[in-house]
């Protein structure tokens, strides 16, 4: 195995991906999902059992990131399809969620290797499917096209049999995107978390909450 190459996918998976994209034929999931994805050549160590808890960490501080520019473009577009800006809060990419996902799939821990495979293959599937259906890369699609593509894989239980693996990828990607988003200050505000501030007293739920619950 070539330890020098930069690509996170092995040669076989990469060739499959390109062939599939070029062919624009009906896409067989098996061609992409399950193709082995390499662990990074430069295997970093974790942060250890006694890390500095007071420091603020950014993706890339502790281990090298994975996504190529092309993959990042797809990742950003998918993050923002899942969590677009609205009147209340910014889009996922505006608060660093794609970088978080890159950090996540690059982490030198066993569970992360599994997600690394799912997500790199899923992004490849999304690109191939986008080419097949719309003749464009995913990031270049208009919103209606992106949504139409995602609708087919948005729910594992109802996805067509040939899209089950893509749906499982989408579920994982949505969980990571949303988790990454709602743990930021902007995301916490959006979801309605108003704590993490010192209070002189804890007064329990306000009267309007108690009324709504029939507990007033």
């Amino acid at each position: 195995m070539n330890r020098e190459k930069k690509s996170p996918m092995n040669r076989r998976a990469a060739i499959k991906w390109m062939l599939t994209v070029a062919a624009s034929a009906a896409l067989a999931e098996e061609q992409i999902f399950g193709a082995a994805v390499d662990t990074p050549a430069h295997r970093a160590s974790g942060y250890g059992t006694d890390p500095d808890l007071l420091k603020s960490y950014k993706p890339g501080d502790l281990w090298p990131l994975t996504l190529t520019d092309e993959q990042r473009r797809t990742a950003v577009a998918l993050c923002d399809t899942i969590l677009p800006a609205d009147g209340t809060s910014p889009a996922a990419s505006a608060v660093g969620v794609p970088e978080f996902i890159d950090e996540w799939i690059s982490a030198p821990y066993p569970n992360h290797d599994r997600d690394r495979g799912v997500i790199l293959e899923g992004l490849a599937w999304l690109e191939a499917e986008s080419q097949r259906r719309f003749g464009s890369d995913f990031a270049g699609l208009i919103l209606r096209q992106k949504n139409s593509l995602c609708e087919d894989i948005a729910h594992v239980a109802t996805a067509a049999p040939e899209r089950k693996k893509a749906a499982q990828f989408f579920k994982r990607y949505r969980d990571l995107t949303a988790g990454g988003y709602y743990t930021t200050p902007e995301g916490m505000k959006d979801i309605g978390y108003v704590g993490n501030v010192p209070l002189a007293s804890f007064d329990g739920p306000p009267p309007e909450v108690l009324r709504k619950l029939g507990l007033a």
Partner: protein
Amino acid sequence: MQSQYDVIIVGSGAGGGQSAYTLTMAGAKVLMLESGRNYDPIKETPMFQIDANAPLRATSTPDKPMGFYDATIDGGWAVPGEPYTNASEDPDRRFTWWRARMLGGRTNHWGRISLRLGPYDFKPHQRDGLGFDWPIAYEDLAPYYDKVEMLVGVFGSNEGLENAPDSSPGVLLPPPKARAAELLAQQRAKKLGMPVVPIHRAVLSVRQDAERLPALLHPGNPKAQRILADAMRSRAACFWATSCGRGCAIKANYQSTTVHLPPALATGNLDIVTGAMVREVAVNDEGKATGVIFIDKATGLEHRAKGRAVVLAASSCDTVRILLNSKSAQFPNGLANANGLVGKYIMDTVGTELAGQIPLLESLPLHNEDGAGGSHVYVPWWLYREQLAGKLGFARGYHIEFHPGRQMPGLGITANLDDITGGSFGRKFKEDARRYYGSFVNFGSRGEMIPNEDSFCELDPVVKDKWGVPVLRFHWKWSDHELRQVTHAQQTFAQLIEAMGGKVRKPPAENPLKAIRPGGNVKHEVGGARMGDSSKSSVTNRWGQTWDVKNLFLGDAASFCSNADKNPTLTIMALAWRMSDHLLEELQRGNLT
């Protein structure tokens, strides 16, 4: 380190911390040995940090198994260089062991739930013929529960409930108000006959009364009173933010490093050596302990520390390991193990969880319910009568803890929301996230395990740690009592969720082995060197003093005879205080030399 001490204490957690506090306040010269590094919660606690500041949104990794901000340092389910083994490959018979290698041990991260054992809990065998009775009764420990609660600060209320003892007047701090989901559960549990009452936790809901308490705790000892008053004045009340599991820089909750050790050090009677891994207790020709042999982890060199008495409080299984590794011609089976009982009858807490989604809690007006960083209410075991009448099919009870959902969002905050939304994304997902945030409640049971012959630890005949010291090998088996308890708890959670108008996230488990937390997983492992009335059937006497070596004492949960559904830390501290009082008397009487 001096050449000779009155007492050597191994371990700095709840048992070691309390022992050091009691002994040094009374004037004894004490050396404490801690295997982990020094730790200062005031400087090191990540107060207010949000998950986005941490690697991987602060989620669990093999390096930090309870999450990045969990206070545990150099510990977890695996400690590098310090393995343990399991005798069985069967996943249902494996034991998992949580260790911390840091000053204060696991008191830095624990849940602070502080429930007293009740009268039944000390005499379980008398009640149902199972397990073992303690050699002491509730009345023996009650004064020490009062003292510990006053010292560390415990909030809660006296409810006069069966086998959930009240504290003496003026001991408990006021409980915080219940949160929305907790109040809803309280209202709806009533028709199921389940009481929902304030839980007891070692968190200062208000500041301690530094004028009143020191005189009650140390009558006739003005120096101790002065030191304790200063220590109490240095602690702030909870400011209702930041999870207790991170530790507490303002000393609002109990951890050994903020509550026990500072006043003990202020007496001038305590030396602490960290990075000191105790291998064995040293004994002389008369069979008395002369101190301990420890390895300086930084250099790998062996040292001896000498004391007139030794207290092992290394956490129950590590205490067992030290006893078993203290082998000599005189004690070929290890120390205090003439009857072969060391390592036997280890117990954990029985735990299982089920989550529900409660439509009534959707889209509530925004409000802050961080509170005291943990449960404010709980359901104490409520079916004593039905159980006694033989209606439940299992012995011993459990209590229920709640985890309402308006806490600071973590990475899993919307995980599996597609089960409810049918897979929304885009703007609709954002609306769904707002709507469902706070509508999930997680119920967990914490129940009693009955000691059995198949759950024990011993020295592994082959495997050694990085210093060449034999490690523990565990054997584990749940009995039908624990498994039926789990099935009952799962069904009860489902009823409770339904009574709140909600739906379970997944059906209650049909196979309890799939729903029970693995042995050791609740981190309440106790026993292994139980106390008793006779040297034939126990390892220590009613004071925690070993039968075989009278100047050797056990100050942690190793001496537990049963493991009631009351989380063990408060009882560890009460027993350690009582043990230390006895040790002081024995020292003064000259009985230990």
